[in-house]
């Protein structure tokens, strides 16, 4: 390993500055039309998902769920279920083998009951799980279980839950009340002095907005398979973070060594963060493990579609704001209070985007986290959804109150940590980034695409010939340069044909990251893209970052590059030294008399820089593998040829392993430079309240594009999911019974192909990301930012604010005074 290369790699760990060592030439990175490596498998149905796994003798396990939003099991008679032919095991909450708590996944390590006997929301998996020869028999057996429930009082509304004397939502874990973060200073974020800021303001707005409960809808329902191979587990997980599963399993049953656990993480019918980060998401695996041990058979557990609805987006809640600005649009203070609900992750402040994106000097935000008797919530696509809503709502309300163009207000306040864009530009220079005005580039492109200057009008002033009201909306924020994490990658050159194989963990949810890794490796190694392949390790070895926190490219991209750089160096060294050095002798180098620096690789061919006709393919260097491995020549045993060493040209294995480690923006260690801007055109029918989305323009400064189709896919997909969440998606509970009413895809409306007129995707490349080659991640953000966009668009159409999301027709009619 070249220590020089390694020290350059280490210099970029904890990448707090721009990428000092980009490539000079890109042949595959940033090129359109790179065939995605999972495309054929997925198009043809050959791609296998955990839900498709069938093993000999496999049992199917289903959970008992609570019919009540808050109830305790007083007694459970499972005898009839156990007696049903085909039922192989019924595991009950009072089983002596179940520990009081175990690490069942989630964002951090957890310690929660495996099979609780108290349900805190309707639909919760409690009391028992049945394993049978078929799913059908398991379902039948569940219906035969006789449970005696003691119903408890429940509360569904967060503000009611905060009142003194409100029913306790979870007296087991929170006996003192329903606010879970009382007296914890971490839930207040504060910069400057808001009262001073309000005194300086010419205009002050105060408003409240709310976000209803929406959820992820993982196309493949949560499921898993557990089998004991003798003493040790083999587990199939549908999980964005397979390494967390492995760590959790290692802590079970008194401890299992990590190297004895085999994890398979196949393709995943996405979960958008969601399920993968839920507390208790390994509960099914724990039960399956116990049953598999008892029965000696593999066990598959699964949720049905309705059960996947049990969790939701963590930013649901109620937000109160007061914000002040000068007449020219300069915002002087923002103060907010938020009530958020059932958070399965640590409380995350909601005024971060004001600090990270703007010059606003005075900011205050206080979060109260409250419990209600609905399912847990967690980051869905991204935990920054509330921040996007808050930034959007404050900017839109202020621009409206001042009678200003919202795009101008955004540009006026762009900056970071209370400083303006001039200061931010100085920081770009200091850190070695190109100095570009990212927001300006984004809005200029976006405005042109939507026709902003021609079409924007004052709110409620444009009626179309078809009788509908026309509206234009705009929102913006920074790009997702979060990218904390660690990653390991290995690359080897294969014998015989000299192709390259990247080895890393698979956690595929469809963002086409594996193709992008191949593009990076190909360019770094000087290879053709078709000669590089990502061979996913289904086990969570070669620990790589997963799609979470937009770290695929920003962390793993570095790890791939680091390994490729070490490998290239190794290849060039191997090409200049004697080969097959053993006690029998050795063979001459592939490039005699040359030094590694004299050589380079292009199109998978090694050549001498000063004399490009002196060339050898990587295959010629890696060498043929004979009957006894690469060490033997195809022409027979060397000593029988009479010329013992001529054929004996074994080249050392060409294999490099490297890694990346970085803290990311979340630790407040980096400024964010890249921005995104989104535009929407709507038509609102005043009679029905229907909002038709005619056009969306989504502009993302991703720093640098590695895979065009991958980035555009995230823009399209983010726009669809975002508009669903902002316009039609809401999980509804019956206030009288606490029962979820629309946990299915007929009544919970996700967008279809016809729900958005057209989408323009625009990618900007300022190179101001901290990732390799100046990139930032894009996977989480469009779906997180665009739900907010519908608010200003509808306001621009009808001239009234609809501040309760999703903006369903009934809410539009209410704002118009018609309902």
């Amino acid at each position, binding site marked *: 390993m070249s220590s020089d290369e390694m020290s350059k790699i280490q210099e970029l760990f904890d990448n707090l500055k721009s990428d000092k060592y980009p490539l000079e030439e890109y042949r595959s990175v940033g090129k359109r039309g790179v065939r995605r490596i*999972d495309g054929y498998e997925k*198009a043809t149905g050959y791609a296998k998902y955990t839900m498709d796994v069938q093993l000999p003798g496999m049992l199917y396990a289903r959970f008992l769920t609570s019919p009540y939003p808050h109830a305790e099991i007083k007694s459970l008679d499972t005898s009839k279920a156990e007696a049903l032919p085909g039922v192989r095991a019924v595991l009950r909450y009072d089983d002596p083998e179940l520990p009081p708590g175990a690490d069942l996944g989630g964002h951090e390590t957890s310690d929660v009951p495996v099979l609780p006997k108290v349900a805190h929301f309707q639909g919760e998996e409690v009391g028992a799980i049945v394993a049978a020869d078929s799913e059908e028999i398991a379902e*039948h057996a569940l219906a035969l279980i006789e449970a005696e429930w003691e119903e408890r009082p429940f509360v569904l509304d967060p503000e009611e839950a905060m009142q003194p004397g409100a029913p306790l939502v979870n007296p087991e874990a929170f006996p003192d009340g329903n606010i879970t973060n009382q007296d914890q200073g971490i839930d207040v974020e504060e910069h400057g002095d808001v009262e001073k800021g309000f005194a300086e303001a010419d205009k002050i707005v105060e408003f409240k907005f709310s976000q209803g409960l929406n959820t992820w809808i993982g*196309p*493949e329902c949560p499921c898993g398979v557990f089998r004991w191979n003798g003493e040790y587990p083999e587990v199939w997980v549908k999980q964005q973070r397979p390494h967390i599963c492995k760590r959790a399993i290692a802590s079970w049953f008194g401890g299992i060594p990590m190297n004895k656990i085999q994890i398979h993480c196949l393709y995943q019918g996405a979960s958008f963060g969601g399920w993968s980060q839920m507390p208790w998401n390994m509960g099914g695996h724990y039960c399956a493990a116990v049953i598999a041990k008892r029965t000696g058979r593999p066990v598959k557990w699964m949720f049905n579609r309705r059960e996947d609805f049990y969790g939701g987006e963590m930013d649901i809640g109620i937000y109160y704001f007061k914000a002040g600005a000068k007449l020219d649009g300069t915002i002087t203070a923002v103060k907010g209070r938020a009530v958020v609900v059932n958070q399965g992750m640590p409380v995350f402040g909601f005024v971060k985007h004001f600090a990270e994106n703007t010059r606003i000097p005075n900011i205050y935000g206080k979060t109260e986290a409250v419990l209600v008797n609905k399912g847990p919530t967690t980051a869905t696509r991204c935990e920054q959804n509330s921040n996007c809503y808050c930034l959007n709502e404050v900017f839109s309300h202020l621009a409206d109150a001042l009678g200003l163009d919202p795009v101008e207000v955004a540009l006026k306040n762009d900056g970071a940590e209370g400083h303006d864009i001039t200061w931010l530009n100085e920081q770009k220079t200091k850190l070695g980034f190109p100095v570009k005005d990212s927001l300006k580039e984004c809005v200029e492109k976006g405005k042109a695409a939507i026709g902003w200057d021609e079409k924007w009008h004052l709110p409620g002033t444009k009626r179309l010939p078809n009788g509908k009201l026309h509206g234009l909306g705009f929102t913006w924020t920074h790009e997702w340069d979060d990218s904390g994490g660690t990653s390991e990658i290995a690359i080897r050159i294969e014998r015989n044909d000299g192709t390259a194989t990247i080895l890393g963990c698979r956690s595929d949810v469809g963002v086409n990251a594996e193709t992008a890794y191949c593009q990076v490796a190909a360019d770094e190694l000087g290879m053709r893209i078709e000669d590089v392949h990502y061979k996913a390790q289904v086990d969570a070895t070669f620990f790589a970052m997963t799609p979470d926190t937009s770290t695929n490219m920003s962390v793993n991209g570095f790890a791939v590059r680091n390994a490729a750089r070490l490998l290239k160096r190794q290849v060039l060294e191997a090409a200049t030294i004697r080969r097959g050095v053993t006690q029998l002798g050795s063979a001459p180098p592939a490039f005699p008399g040359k030094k590694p620096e004299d050589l380079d690789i292009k199109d998978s061919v090694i050549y001498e820089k000063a004399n490009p006709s002196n060339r050898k393919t990587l295959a010629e260097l890696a060498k043929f593998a004979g009957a006894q491995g690469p060490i033997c020549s195809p022409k027979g045993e060397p000593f029988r040829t009479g010329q013992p060493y001529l054929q004996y040209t074994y080249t050392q294995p060409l294999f490099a392993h490297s890694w990346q480690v970085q803290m990311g923006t979340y630790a407040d260690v980096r400024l964010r430079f890249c921005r995104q801007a989104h535009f929407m055109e709507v038509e609102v029918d005043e009679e029905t309240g229907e909002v038709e989305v005619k056009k969306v323009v989504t502009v993302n400064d991703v720093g640098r594009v590695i895979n065009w*189709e991958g980035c555009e896919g995230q823009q399209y997909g983010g726009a*669809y999911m975002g508009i669903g969440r902002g316009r039609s998606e809401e999980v509804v509970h019956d206030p009288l019974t606490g029962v979820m009413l629309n946990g299915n895809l007929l009544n919970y409306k996700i967008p279809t*192909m016809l729900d958005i007129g057209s989408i323009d995707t625009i990618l900007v490349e300022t190179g101001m990301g901290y990732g390799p080659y100046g990139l930032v991640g894009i996977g989480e953000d469009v779906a997180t930012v665009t739900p907010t966009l519908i608010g200003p668009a509808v306001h621009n159409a009808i001239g009234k604010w609809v501040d309760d999301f999703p903006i369903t027709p009934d809410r539009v009619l209410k704002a118009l005074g018609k309902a």
Partner: protein
Amino acid sequence: MKPDKKVPVSEDEINFSVNGDLYKVRVQSNWTLQYVLHDELGLTGSKELCNEGACGACAVIIDGRPVLSCMTLAIECDGQTIETVEGIARAKHPLVEAYVKHSCMQCGYCTPGFIVTAKALLDKNPSPAEEEIKEALVGNLCRCGTYPQHIKAVLEAANNLHRGQPI
């Protein structure tokens, strides 16, 4: 498969053709076609996403029409000719390569259902207009939001079919 616990279950033998292969299967009266294809025959391309006729992930072609296999009882398929995504792939239909080229998949869970629905469209209408494609595919849900890419792919596949190019 969603068994109705109230209805007495009977069993029968059915014969049908799937992708040109003849099968003789014993099925219970409450088994869906999706269950039989996916779990009994191992044709895992027909995915269960919503399990109630709302998403198209389980689509197969029966007698030229796209059919939701989660809403179809297997026992009613006696004597039928069924085509699944595996058969479409085996026949090297140009849709497959067009789908790969236009990156129509993200997680891929819905993709086979789209290909099956699009194949049924092209069988009936070899030169669909954009609006006709949208109309044909509107019943297929994709949570990853790949919709715009499908239109490009179906148009291209139709074009290639005309030119007689297999792929």
